[in-house]
């Protein structure tokens, strides 16, 4: 079970983030009058933090299913981009392939795209345990918040910053790993530009599309610098 222990170590920061955000979701759900079963079901079947949090007021006001569908599409559109780097890796994983696709959240993506597997460990098992552990933390948090939210009276404001901190750790490590800095610079320029242009509600998807286009345009210099030779 060396792989399980390795996955456990990699996912410790997610444990705290997911527990906190999951509890927040569960508390909101029970305040809105939805039983713990619904919180748990959302954690098991949706497994998307920001969408679940946005859905609570929508469900409480009885928003139409079309509204729910469009909100899901809008908030999670970024997930379209996550699979691109993992097609070959996940395809090898047999029975675990569908689960790896389903469980590719921001946090799982950030770990899987930066993790360095130690010698002698089965990479696919590590990746599967990382995804599975993350979701189990999420289910635990959502259910706990729904059942015991009223007893949890700590002032945890700001704890959600641990997710940002994780993303920053990944970017810092990638900055060291990549010889070319163009992907970082292009993405930052697109994000800031579209943020100023479109505002915080609408800049994400245009930013991702523009970054994708820019990376395609800059393919020559980036591949040259990284020494990528695909055979």
């Amino acid at each position, binding site marked *: 079970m060396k792989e399980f222990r390795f996955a456990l170590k990699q996912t*410790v*920061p997610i444990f705290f983030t997911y527990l906190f955000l999951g509890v927040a979701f569960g508390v909101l759900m029970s305040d809105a009058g*939805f039983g713990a079963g619904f919180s748990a079901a959302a954690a098991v*079947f949706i497994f*998307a933090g920001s*969408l679940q949090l946005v*859905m609570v007021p929508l469900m409480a006001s*009885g928003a139409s*299913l079309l509204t*729910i*569908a469009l909100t*899901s*599409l809008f908030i*999670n*559109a*970024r*997930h*379209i*981009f996550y*699979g*691109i*780097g993992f*097609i070959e890796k*996940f*395809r090898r994983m047999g029975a675990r392939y569908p689960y790896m696709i*389903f469980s590719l959240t921001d946090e799982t993506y*950030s770990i899987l*795209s*930066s993790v360095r597997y130690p010698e002698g460990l089965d990479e696919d098992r590590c990746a599967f345990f990382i995804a599975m552990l993350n979701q189990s933390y999420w289910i635990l948090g959502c259910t706990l918040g729904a059942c015991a939210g009223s007893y949890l009276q700590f002032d945890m*404001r*700001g*704890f959600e910053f*641990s997710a*940002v*901190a*994780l*993303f*920053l*750790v*990944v*970017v*810092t490590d990638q*900055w*060291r790993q990549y010889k070319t800095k163009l*992907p*970082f610079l292009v*993405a*930052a320029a697109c*994000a*800031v530009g579209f*943020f100023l242009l479109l505002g*915080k509600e609408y*800049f994400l998807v245009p*930013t*991702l599309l523009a*970054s994708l286009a820019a990376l*395609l345009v800059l393919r020559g210099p980036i591949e040259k610098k*990284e020494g*990528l030779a*695909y055979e």
Partner: protein
Amino acid sequence: MSNAVYPIAAIAVAALVTLGLRAFPFLLFGRRPLPKTLRYLGRALPPAIMTVLVIYCLRDASFGQFPFAVPELAAGALVVILQAVKKNMYLSIVAGTVLYMVLIRVM
């Protein structure tokens, strides 16, 4: 139990849309040998996506008025510096998060 139908349907709709988005690239390219462009993107996209995610997480910070996003920027800088120097993920995340939690309370 008829009032359970709506939340079940809502959760099902959100789950299906989310799964569809996550599965999209796999449905499109999953069965064929991967085009070279996609293998290039698989390598070049992650740093771009993570950079965008960081900025996306900071979208609610108040840059224009007090506290001028100081908690986000100071805690974020601490994370980056610690990670660059010490290369210890846990230390970087814990220190940054604690600094952020302190700053939003005192500012």
